[in-house]
């Protein structure tokens, strides 16, 4: 049973077809990966799913309901939360108040919202920074804050846009279990990621987007070995060259 269903979604910017008839299913309770070379249209696809952009064609269904033309804040109320690739903290606020804005979505009272914000902060490892200003966080801290704010809305589907980009290997290692725990609590995750170590480790299923089109899908290991995927990243003929060189290696 898929929680999110994207059907033939397209988005045109003038002469550029950024997303071209992309379809994908995200099964409930799983971590689904979305990979692809730079400029493939991954973030645009996320914007279409979360409502920040309107598609030129196609539809988005969440939990069986058509949400294609719904405003972002209404989708958030339905349970779709997203993080931003370029982090967007409320820079003038404390970490606690940042997360509380997310928590207020389901908890109208201040006391409950703050309690909830604190719990989420501890879950993602920001417990000690609660009272500091968001602007004082490191890159890794800001990525965690993105994650915490989205989680505080108590989503059913979490869209993670490169939450691991810019982190060093040990920071990546620290955050992988956090993401897995979120999944284990029953939150479905769709993640854009370039860090292949994470994709291999976390994802149950991977979709590959290149030049706006879905070119492959499958288990992470199978997708990485797929010649079509290798060529999308490394250029035409790359798969054959790698195969030809393999015996000498």
């Amino acid at each position, binding site marked *: 049973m898929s929680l999110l269903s994207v059907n033939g979604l397209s988005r045109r910017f003038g002469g550029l077809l950024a997303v071209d008839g992309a379809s994908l299913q995200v099964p409930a309770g799983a971590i689904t990966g979305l990979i692809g070379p730079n400029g493939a249209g991954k973030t645009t696809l996320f914007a279409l799913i979360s409502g*920040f952009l309107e598609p030129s064609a196609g539809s988005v269904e969440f939990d069986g309901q058509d949400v294609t033309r719904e*405003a*972002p804040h209404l989708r958030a109320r339905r349970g779709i939360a997203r993080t*931003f690739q370029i982090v967007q903290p409320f820079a003038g606020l404390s970490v606690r108040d940042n997360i509380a*804005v997310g928590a207020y979505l389901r908890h109208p009272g*201040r006391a409950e919202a703050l309690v909830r914000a604190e719990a989420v902060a501890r879950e993602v490892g920001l417990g000690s920074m609660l009272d500091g200003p968001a602007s004082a966080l490191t890159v890794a801290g800001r990525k965690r804050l993105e994650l915490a704010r989205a989680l505080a809305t108590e989503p059913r589907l979490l869209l993670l846009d490169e939450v691991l980009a810019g982190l060093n290997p040990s920071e990546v290692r620290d955050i992988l279990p956090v993401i897995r725990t979120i999944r284990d609590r029953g939150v479905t995750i769709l993640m854009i990621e370039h860090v292949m170590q994470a994709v291999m480790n976390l994802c149950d299923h991977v979709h590959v987007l290149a030049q706006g089109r879905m070119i492959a899908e499958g288990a992470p290991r199978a997708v990485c070995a797929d010649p079509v995927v290798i060529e999308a990243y490394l250029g035409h003929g790359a798969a054959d060259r790698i195969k030809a060189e393999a015996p000498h290696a």
Partner: protein
Amino acid sequence: MSARDIAAPVLLVAVLAVLPFFASGTMLNFLVSALIVALGAQGWNLLAGFGGQLSFGHAAFFGTGAYVTALLQIRFGINAWAGMAAGIALGAVVGWVIGFLSFRARLRGSYFALVTLAFAEVLRILANAADFTGGAAGLLIRLQPGFGNLQFPDRGVFLWLVLGCILFVLLLTASIERSRFGAQLVAVRENEDAARALGVDVLATKLKAISLSAAITAAAGCLYMQNFLYLDANIAYGTWISVEVLIASIIGGLGTVLGPVVGALALHGLGEATKLVSGQITGIDLAIFGAVLILSVAFAPNGVMGLRRLFKGRAG
């Protein structure tokens, strides 16, 4: 709200409220004028300080409050209190309409500021031209002291009325600051996209803020009318009030509960003091306002309230 949130506003208002027992008539006149600006500034601060939507046309709301109060009394013989209530309500409506038109069009920053200025100017020109609003001659309310007419022979009583309004808005602002609406409003100020992603209805939040903001500034307009009993288009819809509420809030501390009141008192106190020292050079107080604004933005961007926090922080 906790006792601590209430303590500072109540204390500030209480100190001002005992002044009628000591102060001279001139002093009371000065206080009433300064506090009317303070009330208008409280309205501006709610939208601009908390919501980040910098309006340059709060005269539109101030003037609407003043004109509605006056017109209902003069043209329709309606009670002054009812006139004030209507003025506040209509001010809120004008705020909502201006907000709807500009926020729907996604105007932000200086574009929003310019559009609000344009709305206020249009209203000023219309009010100046129409016979109904008294045209260029303005409107005069007959002097008829009495509680029902919202005119008091004792200046102190009027001061208390203004202070009552200010206290109400101080407590309202303090409670908004600690509410979901307040958190969402600040989130919109800080980053609209991030707020939207967290389920905040950005347009609805801004409209709520501008309506409330307009209602408060309209109340200041109503009180202005009842205090001076005269207005014309250049007073009611003039840029002077748009500028004064903005400077008072910035000097006092943007997005703080007490800032606008502290700022308006400091600014007007300074203005009066320079007039005394300089011996009535026309416009010298405005020149001082400008200088203070530049100094404040350069060295104390969080205003007087920010300075206080700075000292607190240093003390430990």
